[in-house]
Structure formats: structure tokens, C-alpha cells
């Protein structure tokens, strides 16, 4: 079984690209699981952020999934093409990572 993630990549000022990744699918998996699988099996440079992995307590893994804002750790992976993009209303840092820190907690 396979799921397919279409992942928007790129840095500010560059034209974004879309990468297609086939990911092994197990029922019950999250989109974050699939992103982590891509990083450790396909491309270590794929940037996305998370901290707590599965508890939905850090709230750091917000992305756009098929045009809707979700937590990647609670969005279920499905056996179809799913489009993952960075948050549109935040400053892009790289790939799926945007600046989400409160302004007075930045360097």
C-alpha cells in the first residue's frame, strides 16, 4: 500500500517546486509520520518542524494539507495523493517551515 505526498519545497525568493514522494502506508499513520519517513529514507534536507512527535501538545507541526491548515501529527495519511504546503500567511523559512515563533521570542 502506498500514499503519495506532493510536497512544496523551496526558500524565500526562489520559485517553489513540488516534489512527489511515494510513502509506505499503514492504516492509522499521520502525515507527520510520512514526512519523517521521507527525511530518513529519501531526502535528509526536507525541512518541516515538530517537537512532540505524536502528542499534539507542542503545536509546532502546522502545515497546509490539500489547502486546509492542519497539524501534521493529527492529520491521517491516506492512500491517495495529498498536497502538503507551508502555511500561506506566515513568513517562509524553508520548505514547509514558516516563522511561527511569537515576535518577542525571536533572535
Amino acid at each position: 500500500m502506498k500514499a503519495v505526498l506532493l510536497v512544496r519545497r523551496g526558500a524565500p525568493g526562489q520559485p517553489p517546486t513540488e516534489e512527489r514522494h511515494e510513502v509506505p502506508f499503514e492504516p492509522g499513520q499521520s502525515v507527520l509520520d510520512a514526512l519523517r519517513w521521507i527525511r530518513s529514507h529519501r531526502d535528509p534536507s526536507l525541512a518541516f518542524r515538530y517537537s512532540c512527535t505524536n502528542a499534539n501538545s507542542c503545536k509546532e507541526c502546522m502545515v497546509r494539507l490539500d489547502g486546509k491548515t492542519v497539524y501534521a501529527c493529527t492529520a491521517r495519511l491516506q492512500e491517495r495523493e495529498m498536497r502538503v504546503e507551508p502555511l500561506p500567511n506566515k513568513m517562509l523559512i524553508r520548505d514547509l517551515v514558516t516563522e511561527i515563533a511569537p515576535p518577542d521570542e525571536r533572535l
Partner: protein
Amino acid sequence: MAGSQHLSADVLVVGAGGAGMYAALEAARRGAAVILADRSLIGRGGATVMAQMTVAVGLDDDGLDHWEHHYADTLKAGRGLCDPALAQLLCEEGPARIREMDAWGVGWARENGKVKRAFAPGHDRARCVYVDFLNTGPAVSKTLRARLNATPEIRRVGDLHVTSLAVQHGQCVGAVALHVPTGDVVSISSRATIVATGGLTRLYQRNSASLNMAGDGYALALAAGAELVDMEFVQFFPIGHLAPRLIGMDPIMWDPFRYKLGGRLLNGAREEFIHKYGGVDEGRYVTTRDLVTYAIVKEVAAGRGSPHGGAWLSFEHCSEEALRAAAGPVIDRLAANGIDLTRQAIEVAPIAHYHMGGVKADVRMATRVSGLFAAGDAVGGANGANRLSGNAITEALVFGARAGESAARFSNNEKAKADPSAFSVQTRALASGAPCGFNPAAGIEALQATMQLDVGPFRTEASLKRALERIADLRREAAPAKPPAGRPFDTALLDWLDLDTMTRVGEIVARTALARTESRGAHQREDFPGLDEERWHRNQVVTP
């Protein structure tokens, strides 16, 4: 090419979980200018925010308890290896911190105006305060974050990953860090520095850790000249969630269910089994973590595990009303995952949850390196060979406050200033490197598999030696592959740094576990069952 920046403070706190936030607040209260840095977002990463329920504290206002009872239970759970002074500090100062959190509006669960206390395994009475529903950690974090926001003496900097401490003339004078969003190298000079980076449970494949629990503080402190203690003792939480797959739920989630409802722990044949290993279950949650972990792993090894290799945990005898009263909206989150506890048992198995060992510090939280302090789970010794349920947040708050106080005092008396050369070697090291084909994220997974299999709840000489070889191989593979700093949110560099830290720390855990030729608390050697009081009633200290 990496840019560079410089910051300075009286007190630098590395890590913004419960211990780091409390340390920053206490240092600022005593007049210090503080930088609170975290590799993740402030108060979001780390273990505190993930805690679901219990905070152990000997509240004596109603005459029902006293810190000395809590202290006696802590020593007993520690199987003879607690540092008595640290354990006493944890228990004696616990009530003041819990009351302070109460005054700050954390919202401890109450009944008839009194703070409610739950019974937890290993305690002689109901002693654990909490915030409903399964909301203790988020409430503690939120309360501390609100205090931080109202404290202008504290500069909060998220996404700042401290990669080494700067030492000059034997004194810790600050740190070097990677600014994650830009890839800039940052030097921070500080008169006193507190390591509050939590534990190491991310070293294991099955863990309840966040990304930043990779043993950072141990590697930082050791490299700066501090000692580590009790590194072989990794606590496995016996009933971490195993199956069916749940999303958006911490794997420790069944702990509060058991506190409130008991629940029955059953083997693959749906029989009670804890009593066969000298414990008690009978639908009550009373047996300590080390013993339940042992019992589950033994049942699985004997072919009596649940389908996914753990045990069944059943609340099928509980009514829907009782379940909802205990867990509130969490019942709906379970329903969204397709789980109805009145109709099905779930599978649980031991999961790396806490590390008793850590940086060796005295009751001032001072390490042997002048100017370097530690706080929270990063400190080793208070919990000996096995931590009592509920002591981790208490430890974070108490040790955090004490470290903040000591660091502020130290910085007041310390007028020496670091000269820029203190940072030059480490800033150059962070900026240098050459990208190559090595995948550090895969390296981390390989390390986690090795630690789980060979340095997990059960160890043998052969497994530990195998792990040491594998770790050495990983270090050899990774060594030439460090990416240079300078790229925004460079996950390959972040993972490489983590793999470097995790292999260093994993090697220490395996080495100390190999040396301890007995079984005690969370350290179980299949080739050396039972205590060896004569040889091993002592703590192992790792020196640089």
C-alpha cells in the same frame, strides 16, 4: 557561509521546559538579566508540556501528608541509590513550588475547595496533584509562560540550538549556538549558565520523548568538564500505548486512566500476571514501574504477549459514565480514533520515559565546573535507580527554582568577562563541514533501534557490547559528514548534531550498564539477576 551574532546575559538558561522556565523566573526575581534559550519554541518543546497528570507533593496543610513521607517513598523507590540531599530537596521544597504554581493560577483540580490528590504507584498515600483533564503539563507550561511574558528581565529566544558551552580558565563563560531559522552561529557570554535540557529518552525507538530529549545537556556538561551520574538507569514506563495506532495522543495517556479507574492489566491469554512477579494488579494501580516493565517483557518473552508484543489493558468493566467522569473530552478523542473502551481492551508495552541519571550537581544545582549549573531532569541522582511516579515535574520546578537562585547569586559575585577567544574554536567548528551522502536522520533511527534492542529494559554483556560496537560504527560513518552551518532550517545539520550527541550519550549509557553487573531498579541484567549489595550499592560517576 554562516553569519554570526553575539548576545550576553548575567544568566543563560539552556532549555525552556518547566525547569528552565522556573530557573529563568527565579534568576530574574533575584535581579539577574536572563537569556532563556530553547532549540524549539519557548515552553512548547521538552517534557513538561507533554505531562498528563501527576505531580507528587507532600502537602501538609490538612494534616494528611508531610514531605518526610514523600521523601521516604522516593528513597524506597530509588532502590538504595538516591542522592539523599537531592531527594530531600525535591520533597521538602515541593510544597512551596506547588503552592506558588497555585497562586499563579495553574488550576490544580479541587474538591470542596481542597487540592485533590490522586494515589499513584509507590506512594504510601494519595499524593499527586493534577490539572483536569489530562492537562497538567500544558497548564504548568502555560502558567510559566504567562509569568515569563510579564518579566522584562528575561529575554526569550526560541529556535536557538546550543551546541557547546564555552569554558575559559576552567570556568563556564557562556555558549555557542546555532540560530535555526537562519543558520547563523551565535555566541552567548554569560556569568552563569544553567543546563535545563531534560533527559535522553529519544535515544530509544519506543519513547515518549519530544525531539529535544536527545541528551543534549549531558553532552554539553560533560564536554565542559562536568561529571555525570547514574547514566545506566533509564526508566521504562510500563504501559505506553502500543496498539491500535492512535494519533494526537501521547503514548503515556493510559497513566491517568489507571490512576482514576484502576483498569486491568492482562497477558495475551487475558489472564492477570503481575502477581507472578511479586507485584499486585487486581485492577488496582499500585505496582512500581520497574516491576511492571519486567513482568510485561517476561510475559512477552515467554510467548504470552498481546498480538503486537505487549500486554492488554482493559477498562471494559467500567461504565461509559465512569470513563467520561475520569477522562472528559479525551473519550471523544478516543472515539475519533475508533476506540470504545467499554468494548475493547488496548495494547500497552514499556516505553522509554525518563532518565534517572544526569549531570552531577549539589543541592545548589552547581556542577564541578565554576559557573555551570543544571536543573530538572538534566540533573542526575535524586531518583536513584527508579523514579517514583509524579516526581518529575516536582523536580523540574524545585530544581529549576534552586538553580535560578544559585546562578543569580553566582553572577552577582562574578565580574569576570569572557574574552571573544573563548568562543572561537566552537564557532569555527559549527561553521565548518562538508555535505556528503550520509543521511543523519537514518543514522538516528539506527541508533534508536540499537538502544531499544540492546540497551533497553533488559541487558546482557553480549547485547551491551554489540550496542557499543554499533554506536562506534555510527560515529565513524557520521564523523566526516557534518554539514556546515549557514543554511536556513538545515535539517541535515540539526539531525547530524543530534546523532553526534545521541551516540556520545548512548555510548555512556551502554558502558555504565555493562559495568554494573547486577540488576537494580530500571537496570535489569539478564546475566546478573538480583542485587549485588556488596559491590554495587553505589553510584557510577562518569568523568570527562
